[in-house]
């Protein structure tokens, strides 16, 4: 038997360490900043600043023809809620605006517009030029401009209705507000920050200030020390979840279709790998600067980029897709979106919970292996 383990686990010591850690959390303004203020700022930004639902995109309409039909199409563009239109008469006026970034694209209604309308079915009645430097917006402009023209053609009866049409329904988010998809995802990032970044910093700080030596000289076992450190951050993480959820539901109007219990349960399971990662980083680094760099690189950025929060995982190159399976936020993100927008879909949640739990156990085992009650490296 490992001689260090021959000692009995003591609840009293665990509580003492937990209490100390909790006091420290509440006395350090930078911890509170990361735990409560930053989440609020992020939530606000994700709710208001990051919006993938594009509205009022600035486009130009170049009216080279003066006919009634051309005027009517221009009016259709002007009336669209998707576009904010700058009318011009000459494409030489519109082109520099596009280069300058003042316009995201422009629609040319050509001189021979009426002649082109005569064909059946009408082909290339207008020309759409987009600014390809921002591919997203360019795609948007192209699609919605095409849609506007098509609708106008159908309304005028110039073009027959398509024989095959799509009738779409967006489940879980009928209005297609990106906020609804982003805010639950933001929660995953906030939790990663508390779980990984804060934990990595606090344990490294204990090494740097030499307090770890003092703790090791007491009868406290490594298990007690680690658990004692985890508990407050675990609770802090759950508090942040509750706060963020309350904000999301009451301030930003995000529905919570699943149960609060499921949400908290998921968060609790997610905190396992998140805290484990933070502890592992700090036991290996023992230095705040390096710990924060690694936490940023291995914790925060993957939670942002490889979790499927903003970027679709299935579209990534295969090596990156495989890598995402090691990112706990990946499972948490889809589980959160489901609990908020769809409900308690257990067939989806169980595998996610299982994966997070497994990652957590592996990380914690690595932590336990690397923490001996000794100053030997």
């Amino acid at each position, binding site marked *: 038997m490992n001689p260090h383990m021959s000692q009995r686990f003591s609840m*009293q*010591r665990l509580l003492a360490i937990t209490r*100390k850690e909790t006091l420290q959390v509440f006395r350090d303004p930078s911890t509170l900043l990361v735990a409560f203020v930053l989440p609020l700022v992020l939530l606000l930004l994700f709710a208001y600043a990051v919006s993938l639902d594009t509205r009022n995109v600035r486009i130009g309409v170049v009216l080279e023809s003066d006919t009634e039909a051309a005027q009517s199409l221009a009016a259709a563009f002007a009336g669209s809620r998707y576009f904010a239109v700058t009318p011009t008469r000459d494409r030489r006026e519109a082109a520099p605006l596009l280069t300058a970034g003042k316009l995201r694209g422009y629609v040319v209604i050509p001189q021979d517009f009426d002649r082109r309308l005569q064909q059946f079915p009408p082909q290339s009645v207008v020309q759409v030029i987009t600014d390809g430097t921002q591919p997203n917006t360019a795609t948007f402009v192209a699609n919605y401009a095409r849609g506007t023209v098509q609708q106008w053609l159908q309304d005028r009866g110039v073009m027959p209705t398509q024989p095959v049409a799509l009738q779409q329904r967006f489940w879980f988010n009928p209005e297609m507000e990106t906020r609804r998809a982003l805010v639950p995802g933001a929660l995953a990032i906030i939790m990663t920050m508390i779980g990984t970044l804060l934990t990595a910093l606090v344990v490294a700080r204990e090494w740097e200030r*030499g307090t770890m030596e003092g703790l090791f000289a*007491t009868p406290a076992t490594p298990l007690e020390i680690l658990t004692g450190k985890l508990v407050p951050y675990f609770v802090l993480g759950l508090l942040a979840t509750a706060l963020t959820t309350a904000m999301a539901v009451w301030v930003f109007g995000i529905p919570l279709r699943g149960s609060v219990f499921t949400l908290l349960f998921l968060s609790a399971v997610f905190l396992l790998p998140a805290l484990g990662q933070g502890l592992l980083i700090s036991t290996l680094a023992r230095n705040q600067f390096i710990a924060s760099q690694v936490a940023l690189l291995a914790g925060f950025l993957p939670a942002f980029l490889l979790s499927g929060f903003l970027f679709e995982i299935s579209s990534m190159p295969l090596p990156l897709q495989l890598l995402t399976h090691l990112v706990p936020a990946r499972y948490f993100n889809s589980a959160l979106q489901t609990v908020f927008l769809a409900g308690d879909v257990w067939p989806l949640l169980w595998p996610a919970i299982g994966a997070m739990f497994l990652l957590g156990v592996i990380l914690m085992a690595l932590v336990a292996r690397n923490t001996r*009650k*000794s100053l030997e490296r």
Partner: protein
Amino acid sequence: MAESQPGGIELQGVVKRFPQVTALDGISATIRAGQLTGLVGPDGAGKTTLMRLMAGLLRPDAGHITVAGADTVQQQHLIATGVGYMPQRFGLYEDLSVLENLSLYAQLRQLPAAEQKRTWERLLEFTRLAPFSKRLAGKLSGGMKQKLGLACALMGRPQVLLLDEPSVGVDPVSRQELWRMVGELTDSGMAVVWSTAYLDEAEQCRHVLLLNQGQLAFDGPPGALTGRLQGRSFRLPNPRGDRRHLLQRALDLPAVSDGVIQGHAVRLVAEADADLQPLQVLAASAGSQLEAVAPRFEDAFVSLLGGGPGGTSVIAELMEPVSLESDIAVACSNLTRRFGDFVATDDVSFEVRQGEIFGLLGPNGAGKSTTFKMLCGLLKPSTGQAQVVGLDLARAASEAKNRLGYMAQKFSLYGLLSVRQNLEFAAGVYGLTGACKQQRIDEMVDVFELRPLLDSAPDDLSLGYKQRLALACSLMHRPPVLFLDEPTSGVDPITRREFWTHINGLVRKGVTVMVTTHFMDEAEYCDRVALMYRSRLIALDTPDGLKREAAHHGDEELTMEEAFIRLIERADLSELPV
């Protein structure tokens, strides 16, 4: 082999290797219960490593350590219960209050709830920290932090107490209290190990282990080591003229192995079986005579480690004599600094003459750091003014700063730069260029014997070399005024002597030195000493003058430390409400 006592420590052939060095090379010794054992040795001798081994935090590569009957490797969990350990930079949680720190350690040691309160009260009373129990540990003074650290280490009523350099940065008053506390503990049967670089402390221990380069150089009562020096310690009382110069000349004699200044006398240690004739001649020439005195532990320590350095500082020899336009090198008048409601320095005025060593002393938190910082321009005074070489720091900042050198307590060197790059940086920020810069750097490298180390990182140097490098950097521009902030804190006696050799040499060239220190024997080197207490200047005199002032009756001979403590106590009394 002797059966170890129940409460003591048994070291058997302990070896500890690190990738670079062998820190401990076969240490065997016995540490007994009920007595205070001093662990001394020069920097890098392996004191801290041995402490950590005894606390079970490191494992020996060979040999065994038995602490209070338990093996440190096989029964580590028993060590943790039976041993109180106070690491060098004690791990107090600075953002927790005194009481919260105590409560944490009480619970970690699983004191029964009923007993906890009693234990705290006992410890708070014992450490006299009761009035500060709500204060955050980070806001305590250095001395109070150490006492709190001791209280935490004592929490579980350990059988063995390990204290790693508990008195570094602690003023004489607090140090006296630490001693009192430890004395009470050993009387109750505890084994206490006190590691220290201060040899007056070692002298007070019952038993001493002297480590040098990983080996046990001496093991026994301090008197046994001191006894070897019988008949080799002398004093030259009341010499004529400059006693620092006399010391320098004495140290340059082959018969003299070591020497220090002690108030108005010079204290010397002769080489074994040396011919004392030249020494007597020297004494006579200074109008004094050789007086045999009882050897001190420090004499024996230095002699065991091969004697002190010579008396002549090459750097001082190279330097051109300094002459200032005015006699007054540093002056301050009505200097006051407030931080919010708190007045850190209250209406302090004094003048330092050119070529003087001026000491600024006081207990932790008395305001000497604040005063010192205002004098060298790191802090702006709230009211009053400070002048260096006649220049107002507030106005001619750059010009005044060019004429002062500064060496901080922590030897602030750039750890990421090599030794050479540190020197070049120091030369550059003081505006040295070209051939002049190269010449100065070469001088410093030669004088401080830094050449083989030019490409190493400062962090890899021993404390002594770090101190040399820091001094070299602050002397690069040959400043007429030198500010030293606790320059020898935690440094061993030999390095300290070398340092003072340089300082003495510089002062002889007309350099003015301002110094803060907790070493009372260093205060003896000063021409004049200012004593600060509770933000005010309570005494300003020569060291002997201060001793006379503190003495109860005319012929009472006090040490500097006793004088310090008395003056502080007197100031306390005078502040009592009448």
